């Protein structure tokens, strides 16, 4: 291999720096959006009523669509979803020649400035939402039924029970899988280089393409990804000790 040629990395330093920032930006937005989406979907997945109109409404208008959504986004590769959203869905919505939401010159402007970023964030968030919804579902289901029943008999509404009794307890148990998911998002963002998003993997691809060397760029971004995930898991660890206190017997 002829040693590690530092000059290759230093020459493309701006690309690596910008790439790291883009990866971080993408991760933060996707983790937040994915978690919120997952919460809504997870609650929707469990929504059920015993009697009357709501029984059918919740089953067919909430539960089934959510199940379908989760099944689709877990059942197809994220890479395919990114390409699908960028080259099929987004052009329908934002298109200089007749987009459903934005069209004309403004659409051109948006697409050329933020197109790849928007598609990547949308795809990864939608995908993460599907996985997170299952984490929420498992977390909520793991809380003893008696907890909810007790809250309801105290006169709390369904939402109150969820917000004040079930979710806080479930959240503790959900932290490790949520942390896992966040780490997965960091790495998944590398797939967006296919649509030209200038993140970390994109920087490495550019360099390896220009120099026909693979050792330096890919080792460099591996280290950067690793550092990001280490920091992230330390943060999750911190949250776990903080929110885990109530459970611990001294």
């Amino acid at each position, binding site marked *: 291999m002829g040693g590690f040629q530092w000059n290759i990395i230093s020459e493309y330093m*701006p690309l690596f720096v910008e790439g790291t920032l883009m990866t971080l930006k993408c991760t933060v937005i996707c983790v937040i959006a994915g978690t919120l989406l997952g919460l809504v979907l997870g609650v929707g997945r469990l929504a059920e009523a015993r009697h009357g109109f709501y029984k059918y409404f919740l089953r067919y208008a909430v539960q089934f669509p959510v199940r379908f959504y989760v099944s689709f986004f877990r059942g197809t590769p994220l890479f395919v979803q990114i390409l699908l959203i960028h*080259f099929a869905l987004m052009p329908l919505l934002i298109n200089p020649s007749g987009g459903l939401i934005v069209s004309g010159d403004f659409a051109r402007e948006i697409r*050329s400035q933020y197109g790849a970023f928007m598609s990547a964030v949308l795809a990864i968030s939608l995908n993460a939402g599907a996985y997170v919804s299952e984490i929420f579902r498992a977390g909520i289901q793991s809380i003893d039924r008696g907890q909810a029943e007790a809250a309801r008999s105290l006169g709390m509404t369904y939402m109150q029970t969820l917000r004040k009794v079930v979710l806080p307890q479930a959240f503790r148990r959900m932290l490790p899988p949520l942390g896992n998911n966040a780490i997965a998002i960091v790495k998944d963002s590398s797939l967006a280089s296919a649509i030209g998003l200038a993140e970390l993997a994109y920087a490495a691809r550019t360099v390896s393409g220009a120099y026909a060397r693979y050792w330096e760029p890919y080792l460099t971004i591996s280290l950067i990804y690793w550092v990001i995930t280490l920091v992230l898991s330390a943060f999750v660890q911190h949250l776990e000790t903080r929110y885990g206190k109530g459970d611990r017997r001294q």
Partner: protein
Amino acid sequence: MLTKRLVLAAACILTTFAALPAAQAADPTYTVGAGGTYRPFEFETPQKELVGFDIDIIKAIGKAGGFNTKLVSTPWEGIFATLDQGDRDIIISGITITDKRREMVDFSAPYFPADQVIITSPGAKVAGLADLKKLQVGVVNSSTGDIAVSEELGKASTAIRRFDNTPLMLEELYRGGVDAAVGDVGVIKFYIKSHPEKPFKLVYDNKFKRQYFGIAVKKGNKVALDKINTGLKKIVADGTYAKTYKQWFDADVPTLPQQ
């Protein structure tokens, strides 16, 4: 168990010896790597067969230069590393000869002039390379166009958007994701011809340095390189090159420089 292995080993040795004299007498077979998404240079038919200008050229060179070709579709990403690892003996994949790449691999004599062109939407006000400075420009990763645009905008510029292949890049341009794109005239024209529904404008600029495609072999593989260069010379002299060129690009056949 042991006898089985012994028999197997004996069989292997025997076949190797049996095959050796035959292989020495006949022409060597080289494994040739080519990408599959660079129409009309190399692309795959629905039957997974590689076809294109490059493919026809390397087959003709092999016939004239004295080697057999075994074509293997090889993604552009990591294509040079396959030479070092011994997975491929030859790569022909619309590879522009650059000084940097010369440090990694050995190139044959040039076999194709890679002229560059700027593509924009019909309404865009772009007259030449200099107008690209404030725009988002799509290129194919590490292509000749990438090199030319990198010189103009700075190689680490994030206004350059690098894609895996030309169709992806042109789709992005068509959808307004980039303001302009730069690519090989041959490939671009072929794309436009097969997608008449997409209006593009071509802008030529003679500031583009003329670059050439070369055929790559592992550094120091002089045996293969000599065969390739001999073959190339022969097919240029006997008109096979011109015939193949006209078949894929209905344009004047260029004169190739000698190295």
